């Protein structure tokens, strides 16, 4: 079980990690500023295995891969949203962080609720109920299964 951190629609990449922190040489130095403008206690409270749940268009805006990387570095197990901005979506798969589309979950959970995710079966369990989530296209599932693009390219060599 992991705790849910719930966000609304159109969360942009500047809100996930602001431009001024992109200069930090490592993701570990950036990650303490994750979601700073929306929830300044997120980075301190989130624990490995927790989840981010959002409304439509999560990760819109810039192409900064750091937005996906800081979430992964903080141990976020998956981001579940009604829809994702395309660059954020691809970046997440490429670094090996699951991004899952669920049209229902955001509307039925509260911030702080707990949930479980069975990625293989495509099933989410929260508050005693189960929800099915969409599966990835084969091309992306393969990259994710292999642990991201770097691992995937290395395997093909």
């Amino acid at each position, binding site marked *: 079980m992991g705790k849910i951190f719930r966000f609304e629609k159109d969360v942009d990449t500047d809100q996930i990690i*602001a431009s001024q922190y992109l200069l930090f040489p490592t993701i570990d130095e950036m990650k303490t500023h994750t979601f700073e403008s929306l929830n300044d206690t997120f980075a301190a409270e989130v624990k490995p295995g927790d989840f981010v749940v959002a409304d439509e268009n999560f990760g819109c805006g810039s192409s*900064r891969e750091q937005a*996906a990387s800081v979430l992964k570095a903080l141990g976020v197990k998956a981001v579940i949203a009604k829809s994702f901005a395309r*660059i954020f979506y*691809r970046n997440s798969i490429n670094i090996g962080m699951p991004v899952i589309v669920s049209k229902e979950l955001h509307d039925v959970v509260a911030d702080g609720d707990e949930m479980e995710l069975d990625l293989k079966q495509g099933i989410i369990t929260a508050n005693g109920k189960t929800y099915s989530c969409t599966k990835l296209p084969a091309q992306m599932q393969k990259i994710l299964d292999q642990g991201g693009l770097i691992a995937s390219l290395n395997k093909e060599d």
Partner: protein
Amino acid sequence: MGHTLIEKVFGRKVGREVKPGDIITVDVDWCMIDDIMAPFAISKFEEMGFSKVWDPNKVVLIYDHFVPATQVDDSRHFRVADAFAEKYGVKNVHRTDGICHQLMTEAGYVKPGDIAFGTDSHTVTYGCVGAFSTGIGYTEMAGILGTGQLWVKVPESIKVVVDGTLPKNVTSKDVILRVIGDLTASGATYQSLEFSGSCIENMSVASRMTMSNMAVEAGAKCGIFVPDQKTCDYCNIDYSDEIKELYPDEDAVYSRVLHYQAEDLVPVMACPSLVDNIKPVSEIKGTKVDEVFLGSCTNGRLEDLQLAAKILKGKHVAPYLKFIVTPASRKIYLEALRDGTLEILSDAGAIITTPGCGLCCGRAGGILSDHEVVVATNNRNFLGRMGTSKVQIYLASPASAAATAIAGEITEAPLDLF
């Protein structure tokens, strides 16, 4: 069944018909890496264990977000990228020439029908010349540097038709803001925006660039225009039979069609703090403004500076107001210098800064603080983008920005000025 423009661009590249939803692997014509992302892309490239860049002539490194450096660590990015260019034989390096998205077409790289990827979301800009281009993360860029290929899903298309003649105080910026307002910030996610209609045909390539640049603000994968004689003149190439084949079929299938009559359009602004929070300028008129920014890859071109100069000639910006002008490239800077545009703007009280991303990405030249209001011609008004998260950012056309600079409060350019 006919094909949309983007289906034709991809179909030509892979040598067979493609349809939306197909996942194809494409050979990349150009990849652009900017200074912010260069060290990250380079370190991933090395982590992947590649010993050479697939084709150094197709790689373009552009330093723009940090030029000139404003923080002590900025120059590390230049050093890392310079060392990479030296080691792998990358010759296309622009260190102080302007903003990446301006240079990728202006300096002669991307042409109609090309496929380009960049480490910045506004890479969609090159759709202005009928190319497919989009933003990617640095790990994917590292993969392209090594392999020269990337997989893409062929997108569905939304057709945006604009017919007629725009009122004189309405620019292509107002058109694209209106389109984003109607589509919403996620309304074109994963899709291609295809622009057409008599108003679009009559637009300059520079005006089209403003629109393709902002396609990503509606979530689009690309924003593309049919290449025509004007496009080829801009790209310095012949309007060849091959290029003439790049147009959508009459029976192409679209997920959605939006139609606008240009005469009905009015000056609008994207209000804080969402790009799709679009209001007519008449509704927000009178809002006090601390700063006006004219520049960026959206609206820092010669025609934008000239339009502002026309409005500001012989006038002065309001007391206390800071008016920041940043040409998108050195070429534009020089053209505006030689034709007297910069003199008019400077006389009117403008602070003219060096070409680059500057204020748009919140790094330099005019950063704002809590509760200040800025009217800006760039593409994003996200919370905290141009200073603190309590700054109010309104996105506007160069005409509305110039008129606002004179008034000191939000206003549209009066029609009798032209």
